[in-house]
Structure formats: C-alpha cells, structure tokens
C-alpha cells in the first residue's frame, strides 16, 4: 500500500512537471492556481485537519505574507527574496504568538475567533501606511508564468512533504491525541498549548509563503483581495473534500475544486458559483469523510469490516 502511494505521488508529480509542455498558457495559469490552493489547503490541514481546530482565519497569514513582503521590498528596497523570507518568518512567529491565546478556545468558539482575527488583521493592514494602506502595493513585473507555476508547484510539494513528515512522527501522534481527546492528551503529559501553537505557526508559515509568491506573481496586491475570507473557505472546503488529516487530501481537493470551477465556468459563466456550490453539497452529502476518508479520525472507532475502506489499507 505504501509503495502504491509512492508510485502515485511520483506519477502525479511527473505529470505536473510535464504539464506546461503539453498545454497552453491558460491551462498553466489554472494549474498555477491549483498548486497555490493545494499548498494553502495543506497549510490549513495542519491546524484544521490534523489538530482538529477548524480555522476560519488562515487567509490572514496568506495576506500578511503578501503585504509584508511587498512592503519590505517597495519601502525598504530589499531584494524580494529577502523580503519574502523575513515576511514568512515573521508570520510564522505571529501565528505561534496568536495561537497561544486563541487555541484555548475550542470548536465553534475557535472558528469565530479566527474569523475575527482575519478581519482584524485586514483592518490593521488597511490602516498602516507602511503596508501600502488601502491603495495596495505595486511590485515590479518579473519572472514568467512558467516560473511561477514551478514555484507554486514546489511550495505545494513542500507542504505535502511537511504534512507527511508530521503525520509519521511522534509530533503527529501528539496532534492526533489532541484531536482525539484534549483532556486525555493533557493527562498523559502532553504540553497541548505548545503542540497546538506550533501547528498553528506551521500553518501560518506555509500560508505566508504562498502569499509571498502570490504577491510577486500578481505584481499588484491590495488588502481586500489578499484577505478575502473566501480564500479560507476554499482551503477548508478543499481539505474536507479531499480528506481532512490526510497527506494527499488537500491536493486532491484543490484539484477537484479547481477543475470543477473551470467546468462550471464552461457550462455557464453566470451560474458557475451555483454549479460549484451544488457540486460541493453533493460531495459532502455522499462523502462526508472526504475522498480519502479520514486516514485516522481522532474520534470514534469504526469496527473493521467490509464497509470500511481505507486508503492506507
């Protein structure tokens, strides 16, 4: 089973790598977005899927990465790679610090707090002149569509690799224990505050990294675009559809939503959101655990039987 997964992963990567040779610019543009969302969803999965804390505010990290990198490079004339690295590190640290109080909340309370966090971040960023204020930031036009496709693809692979390493480590078990029963996790001696905040920081780190690349790819960013709550919703929906808590789930979810969006647009430009929404409802109704199923649902204990299909076997 493990070898099979590896072969599928290598084949998928090979296809993704060769894709630009076989198609046109439009498809490359779409594929870049899919890779971008795959990385964002994988970042969300760390806190929402693996740790069991459904964040509705992860777009804050994406937006901060974009705005900070833009501000550093425009206002302080830093080379963009340096601005990007500093932005990503700052956002990661911020994620950790914000996680300390916010992750004391559970369930819906946590979700609402993260929603507020994203909106508050948007308000602060909009009012800071250093970050370009409300009028946005223009960045120099560099690179080619092909270059950004490969960068986004690399970040998506990095996100999947980080997820894989976490899931197969002692730290992954720690997070699973927290998702399964937080009181019990405390009772066995897990420093739950530290473990959760670290997961939130990693989630912020990945989100910010995507934001940094997004900013220079688009070459113009403004707060309402990069703090759009719909981006968080997409991360969440993609992860849920693919399979929360799994390594490949967010990637599969991003692929499905990305392709479905294009198909819906092809059917009807005006009704595309409606078609997409209906498609999501159908998937959620018939595959509540996502396509891969939950690879290890913290909760419940389904007895092994002919009806339980697991990707991992």
């Amino acid at each position, binding site marked *: 089973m493990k070898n099979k997964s590896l072969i599928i992963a290598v084949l998928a990567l090979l296809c993704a790598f060769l894709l630009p040779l076989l198609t046109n610019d439009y498809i490359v543009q779409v594929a870049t977005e899919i890779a971008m969302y795959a990385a964002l969803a994988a970042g969300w999965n760390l806190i929402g899927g693996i740790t069991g804390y459904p964040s509705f505010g992860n777009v804050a990290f994406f937006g901060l990465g974009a705005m900070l990198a833009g501000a550093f490079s425009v206002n302080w004339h830093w080379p963009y790679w340096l601005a990007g690295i500093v932005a990503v590190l700052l956002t990661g640290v911020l994620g950790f610090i914000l996680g300390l109080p916010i992750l004391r909340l559970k369930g819906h309370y946590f979700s609402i707090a993260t929603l507020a966090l994203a909106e508050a971040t948007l308000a602060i960023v909009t009012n800071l002149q250093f970050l370009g204020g409300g009028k946005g930031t223009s960045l120099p036009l560099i690179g080619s569509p092909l270059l950004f496709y490969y960068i986004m693809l690399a970040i998506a692979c990095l996100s999947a690799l980080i997820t894989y390493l976490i899931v197969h480590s002692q730290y992954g078990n720690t997070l699973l224990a927290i998702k399964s*029963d937080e009181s019990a996790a405390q*009772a066995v001696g897990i420093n739950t505050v530290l473990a959760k905040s670290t997961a939130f920081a990693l989630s912020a780190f990945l989100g910010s990294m995507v934001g940094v690349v997004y900013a220079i790819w688009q070459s113009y960013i403004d707060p309402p675009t990069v703090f759009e709550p719909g981006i968080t919703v997409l991360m969440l929906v993609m992860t849920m559809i693919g399979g929360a808590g799994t390594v490949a789930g967010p990637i599969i979810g991003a692929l499905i939503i990305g392709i479905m969006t294009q198909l819906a647009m092809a059917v009807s430009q005006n009704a595309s959101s409606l078609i997409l929404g209906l498609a999501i409802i159908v998937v959620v109704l018939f595959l509540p655990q996502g396509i891969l199923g939950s690879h290890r649902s913290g909760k419940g204990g389904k007895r092994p039987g002919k009806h339980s299909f697991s990707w991992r076997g």
Partner: protein
Amino acid sequence: MFTIKGLTVGYGDTKVLWDIDLEIAPGEIIALIGVNGAGKTTLLKTIMGLLSPQSGSISYRGHELSGLDTHSIVKLGLNLTPQGRLLFTGMSVEENLLMGAYLRHDSDVGRDLKYIYDLFPRLGERRRQRAGTLSGGEQQMCALGRSLMSRPSLLLLDEMSLGLAPIVVEMLLDLVVEIRRQGTTVLIVEQDVEEALRRADRGYVLEGGRIAMSGPAPELLNNTSLRIAYLGL
C-alpha cells in the same frame, strides 16, 4: 508526602469544594467516597492542574502543584486515569499505551509494555485493534494501562467501576492492590464504596464539597451512618 491544605475550588461564583484538607503517605491506598456531585472528580481535576483552585495549596514531595500546568504535574509523577476512560479512540491499543509513556525517554518502555500485557492479557490480544472498538472493561484496562505506562508514583483513579460488571470491577480493584505492592501510591475515587474501602488503608468521605469524615478504612466500613448512607444497610 502528598498534602492538600485549605483547598477551595469553584466554577465562577459557584463553589464546589470548601476548605479541603487531605493527606496521603507513601504506599497508601486512599479511598475518596461520596455521592454524585460531592466534588470528587473536581478534586482530582484540581490536583492534576486541569482546574485551578481559588485558594489553598496542594503539595507533593515538596513541590507546590497549584499553578503548575498539567504536563509539569505529570512529570512530577502524578497520573490520572480519568472518568469515562477518555482513550484516544482512533489509535490502537498499543499506541494508547505508548502515549502513556509520552514524557519518558528511558529504554524500559518496551519492558513496561510487556508488563501491562502480562497484567491484562486481553490488551495484548487486541494490541493492534482501535481502542474505540474495545468493550467497556477492556477500555478501562487500557486507560489504567496507559496511566501505568507513565510509571506514576501517585496514581489517581476516577470511577473505574463506571458502567462495568461487578466481576470486572473486582478484578480491577484487586489490581490496584497489586499496583501498590509495586510501589505506587493510589487515590481511588469510587461509587462502589464497599469494594473500595475493603482494599484501602484509609478513606475520606466528601459531602457537599466538604470532607465530612475520614479515618482508617475498616473503621469507616463499620461506621453506622456511613453504612446507612452509602451501603444501604
């Protein structure tokens, strides 16, 4: 070795425990008894740092526990087997047991795992099975085993008998005596007052959040008012 002094605990304005004094000597088995809502679980949660006291002190081997995080308290050698087991239901039995050794970095973990399987052969048979699929008694064994895997010096057992057949309860309580022989001090919270007091050295009776009575277990067993209130005799 373990001392609680003047402990008062509440949820907001509602006080649950008033001015609790309790002492445990090394190697003792102490039974904490009382009806539903008397504050037994609250007391255990406060000891483990899952709740913070409003006043009073809890000390263990010279360390003040109130104000410490739960993981620091576990590090000091205390361990709670929570009410309702609270297993990691999505993990296998063995993974649950190994989670119990979360803070240990010594090389004896494998040996202790074998010891748990000797103690509970059923767990050994089902080591790869998901903990959520175990029967109630097996889940309680797994929860107790998980606690033992931390090699606690003071073990707190909350309502092990909940929802279990009397024969399983007796077997588990007999194991408590065996665990004490291995050098662990035990505080049992039980609704099965008679079975608990039979195996304990001393007992405390909680009533409405206060210690109403305490003394050697045989004395409590023969106490008329206690027999009427708890044993229905």
